[in-house]
């Protein structure tokens, strides 16, 4: 079975971003970029499916400027077989456009399973997997914490409010990953060297026949309201005193 995995180039999870002075965006100059952590979990899950004899080929796709190839190379170094880069240059993308581009890749590649991260830690949208599933008319299981392929079906345990839900989907299907699905492996240097020789195809929205009109416009970006500085209390009595008489919450 062929598995298609999407990876997004996003700000590294350890970076605390700042808003630009002109309020147009956050400042990403000289900031460390990585594979979005949820996408990394998706790549890892595909690798485990291959190790379990379920997946035969793992294709990684990313959308974005040329630097997005770095994240494809990282996924290839983790063990994916080949990459597809959809070159969108500096175009501002939205989830619908991204899902439309990916739906064309699904059409061409005909994967048995599509794995995506549940959300990217930059836009925090949590949309692409669900939208791709709709466009391809495939079943979806979002926020997966366990994935078991059983022949022509996949059984997915999902993290929902209040607990866990298990669904069975017919393949092909779309799954989005949650944090506890797995712990991605570390990439070793020889694999990084080997990944440079793995095939990476380039395509574009034009070649895929998708026009990226945008119905969303980002008017401005502001820093969040800062909390006023708090105080240190010396002991438990003082804490209770403040909560009762200053904050008046107890």
């Amino acid at each position, binding site marked *: 079975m062929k598995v298609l995995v999407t990876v997004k180039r996003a700000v590294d999870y350890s970076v605390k971003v700042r808003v630009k002075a002109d309020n147009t965006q956050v400042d990403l100059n000289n900031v460390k970029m990585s594979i979005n952590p949820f996408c990394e979990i998706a790549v890892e899950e595909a690798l485990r499916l291959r190790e379990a004899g379920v997946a035969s080929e793992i294709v990684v796709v990313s959308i974005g400027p040329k630097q997005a190839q770095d994240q494809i190379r990282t996924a290839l170094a983790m063990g994916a077989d080949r990459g597809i880069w959809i070159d969108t240059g500096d175009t501002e993308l*939205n989830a619908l456009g991204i899902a439309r581009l990916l739906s064309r890749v699904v059409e061409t590649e005909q994967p048995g399973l599509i794995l995506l991260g549940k959300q990217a830690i930059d836009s925090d949208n949590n949309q692409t997997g669900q939208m791709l599933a709709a466009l391809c008319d495939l079943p979806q299981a979002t926020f997966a914490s366990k994935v078991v392929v059983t022949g022509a079906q996949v059984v997915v345990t999902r993290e929902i409010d*209040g607990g866990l839900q298990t669904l069975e989907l017919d393949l092909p299907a779309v799954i989005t990953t949650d944090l506890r699905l797995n712990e991605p492996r570390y990439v070793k240097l020889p694999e990084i060297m080997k990944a440079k020789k793995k095939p990476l195809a380039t395509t574009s929205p034009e070649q895929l026949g998708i026009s990226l009109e945008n119905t969303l416009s980002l008017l401005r970006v502001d820093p969040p309201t800062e909390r006023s500085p708090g105080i240190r209390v010396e002991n438990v009595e003082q804490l209770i005193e403040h*909560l009762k008489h200053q904050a008046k919450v107890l």
Partner: protein
Amino acid sequence: MRILVIAENDNSSLRPATRNTLSAAARLGDELDVLVVGSGCAEVATQAASLPGVSRVRLADHAVYEHRLAENVARLVALLAPDYSHVLVPATTFGKDLLPRAAALLGVNPLTDVVEIVTADTFKRPIYAGNAIATVQCLDPVKLLSVRTTTFDPVPDSGGDARIEPVTTVFEAVHTRFVSEELARSERPELTAARIVVSGGRGVGSADNFGLIYQLADRLGAAVGASRAAVDAGYVDNDLQVGQTGKVVAPEVYFAIGISGAIQHLAGMKDSRVIVAINKDADAPIFQVADYGLVADLFSAVPELAAKL
């Protein structure tokens, strides 16, 4: 403007998040419909009809909707949506699973986690784990929004008298089957709606030690939360996780105990009114957002606090 709010329910009762979502909807217009989808959920429709401001409850009550699977419920939403200027869901796992699928069927862009309605087409939402707030204008003919419930006060649970109309169109889920559900049963208040939340982190050290957190929570009538580290370490179940990718809470008081305060955790609690941090590491980043910080060993401070309250 006509607005559709999709009710969060479990076939027997309306979840409180629906009332927060309705409060957001009321800022957009005064013709408010509520869609109740489920199986054997007539009682939910009655509850929804009694919410103030609701003109009509649309009830899709059928066995195929028992588990509200995205595959077929999205079709139903896409069928009804063109009658409305806005469709709102709470930004819960239910809403986030469903809304983007319906949006793609309609060919529109949904907006996730809306925290402020600026105008009928302009909304604010957090990005980058809440380290920035984006103001976004949406030009789609119907605007699909998931609403961060903590930033909209709930409407009262009674006072309305809406009519209930059935929706008879039935969509089956062809490729998705419900297998099972394990829901945590708790006598404690619901995490996202509690007035007080007591959360523990890696510093708590073990599942057994988490008993201290429960003890304090019960003294305060509080909900219990946890950091990702505590959940990953297996101290508590995943549904207690507070943070960027877990639950977002904004209680009157948030106790962060043995929590260092990673960006991802702060994203889920920094809108709390009063934040209390107890941590033995005086340099822990949690103290930068805490209103009251106590540098202390939690194993002595937490029992003492519980005893003296």
